[in-house]
């Protein structure tokens, strides 16, 4: 694998291969010394032009567990605030000798530009570009789903027939976009739920079903329900009248949570707005796998960094 830019182009075998490598990486974490020498001497640069907690730390932890050297860059307090462009910043960091760049950027398509422009030779891993894609998040969600449903027997399995409801601000969500394509590729049925203002135009051409009523979606007893974060800046941009109304109609409150199927798992990519899209009770319940998602994120990112830096085809590793 040269880069990881989007889940749209991942084939089923490739995706399963990545998940299987992540299983191996998860096993490493159970050892007395949870560290592999695989990427010793390689350098990974985390280029974060946008704020992030879990993704940045997760990539950092993943690279360190593989013994890679990590340099981390945040736009705040850097020359980006002096007007330096993506190209110049990336080339500057590449000139210091990096083997992989983990990029988060506010512009959709930034990772593809960096990978396809010839500005740098390093492998590019998309850690979120605008409202386009966040592939490692989708992979860790698929991993979490597979692990929860199949347990120790999950290696080599796909998500055939699994029904996932993704609820909330799909329009602005790169997490939702990544998950739609990856989960569908793996055989899952995805249902998008939210007000029409937060569902993208042309969503009818996506390989999903669309529902505007969360109660109807819950009544259909999905295997997993994924609540999306409602960003503060959307709350005052006429996508919905006010927070309380959104919470009443599309939030996973206690009452709705009680109506969920007993085996339905609750997911959230974080950071959560407790009391808005998800209640504290739902977030902290045993059916919530939100912290598992964070744990699995490290394994997935270890797998992705290993695959892009070794140039290995995930299909071969899995086979």
């Amino acid at each position, binding site marked *: 694998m040269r880069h990881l830019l989007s889940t749209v*182009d991942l084939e089923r075998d490739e995706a399963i291969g990545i998940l299987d490598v992540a299983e191996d990486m998860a096993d490493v974490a159970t050892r007395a010394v949870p560290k592999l020498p695989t990427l010793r001497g390689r350098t990974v640069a985390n280029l974060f032009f946008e704020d992030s907690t879990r993704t940045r730390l997760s990539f950092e932890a993943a690279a360190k567990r593989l013994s890679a050297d990590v340099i981390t860059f945040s736009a705040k307090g850097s020359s980006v605030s002096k007007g330096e*462009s993506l190209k110049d910043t990336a080339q500057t960091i590449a000139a210091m000798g990096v083997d992989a760049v983990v990029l988060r950027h506010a512009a*959709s398509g930034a990772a593809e530009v960096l990978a396809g422009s010839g500005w740098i030779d390093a492998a590019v891993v998309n850690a979120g570009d605008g409202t*386009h894609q966040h592939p490692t998040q989708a992979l860790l969600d698929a991993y979490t789903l597979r692990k929860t449903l199949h347990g120790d027997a999950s290696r080599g399995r796909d998500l055939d027939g699994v029904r996932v409801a993704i609820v909330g601000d799909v329009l602005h969500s790169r997490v939702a976009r990544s998950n739609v394509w990856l989960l569908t590729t793996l055989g899952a049925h995805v249902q998008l739920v939210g007000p029409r203002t937060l569902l993208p*135009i*042309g969503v009818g051409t*996506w390989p999903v079903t669309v529902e505007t009523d969360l109660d109807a979606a819950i009544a259909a007893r999905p295997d997993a329900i994924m609540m999306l974060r409602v960003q503060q800046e959307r709350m005052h941009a006429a996508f919905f009248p006010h927070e309380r109304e959104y919470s009443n109609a599309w939030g996973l409150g206690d009452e709705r949570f009680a109506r969920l199927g007993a085996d339905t798992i609750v997911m959230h990519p974080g950071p959560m707005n407790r009391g808005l899209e998800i209640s504290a009770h739902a977030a902290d319940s045993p059916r919530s796998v939100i912290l598992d998602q964070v744990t699995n994120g490290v394994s997935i990112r270890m797998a992705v960094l290993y695959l892009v830096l070794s140039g290995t085809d995930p299909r071969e590793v899995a086979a």
Partner: protein
Amino acid sequence: MTTILIRGARLPDGTATDLLVEGGVVTERGTSLSRDGATVIDADGLVALPGLVDLHTHLREPGFEASETVLTGTRAAAAGGFTAVHAMANTSPVADTAGVVEQVASLGAQHGYATVRPIGAVTVGLAGERLAEIGAMSHSRAAVRVFSDDGKCVHDSLLMRRALEYVATFDGVIAQHAQDPRLTEDAQMNEGALSSELGLAGWPAVAEEAIIARDVLLADAVGARLHICHLSTAGSVEVVRWAKARGIRVTAEVTRTTCCSPSRWWRTRRPPMPGATTRASRSTRRCGVTKTCRRCARRWPTARSISSRPTTHHIRSRRRSAPGRRLRSAWWGWKAPFRSFRPPWSTPGCSAGTTSRACSRGYPPRSGASQGTTHRSRSAAPHT
């Protein structure tokens, strides 16, 4: 008096003829003409047309001379057979005072390649807040007849109404850049399934169509003349056709880049990945230029002309380096507006078709008769 003898030119009706031009006027046509002292031009294999008029160019002077100047723009125009160009007002300073439009017009006259007809701004500084010196520009030596905030939309309904009413007092035209600013905030490409998949902010067709619909109704209500700049959606064509059928005095132009580039650009710039092309072409484009152009060509007596919207390399490269905004760069470059075509037989002083150069002296007539011609040809057109 300059005498030019053009030999063997082909007229638009297909016949070949010699043309004798004296003092800028075609005085004789026929075969085997001769005249002592005339400059003879062998036009074998060439077509004689009246000078073409471009209703929408950006000569960028004053303020952006690194992109284009009146000199370079009019030389390009003359090389392409255009004898008159209208220069848009979004210069720096903005062409919102008589002084600026007179300067632009006089620069054109000084260089002598093509007649430069400055377009005046509708509002001061293109800010959309209060009317510019429309009357002063109209009565200036530049005799401005067309007013436009091109690049920005006159989105305030009251201001648009007042502008239309005001220019109607001297039969001027408001050329509208139809783009609802709120519906296109941060927009990067045409709204549709593809924009949703790519996570790029969509530019909905209704942002253009709603403004055009409002403005044709305003033009009708106050009896003013309206022109729509770079129309780009099939729905806009429907609105304009409806307005014309009702006798509303509206004209429109179509450009190549505003309609079709983003999709094509994306297809070529997308990294080669399996299925990438299929996904791009899968997007249903409500406002494909092909459709719009074909409709225009079929329904309206319009002609295609080419004008440039020049920009500097610096601007282009800066825009490219901001990937999120990269699709917007497709807005810069070449465009080919449709505009009203003045047939040779209706051009004053060009009774039988003449060379571009000769005809330029006759254009534009003082009262802005080019739009008048548009109007006449419209009423003769089939509106089916």
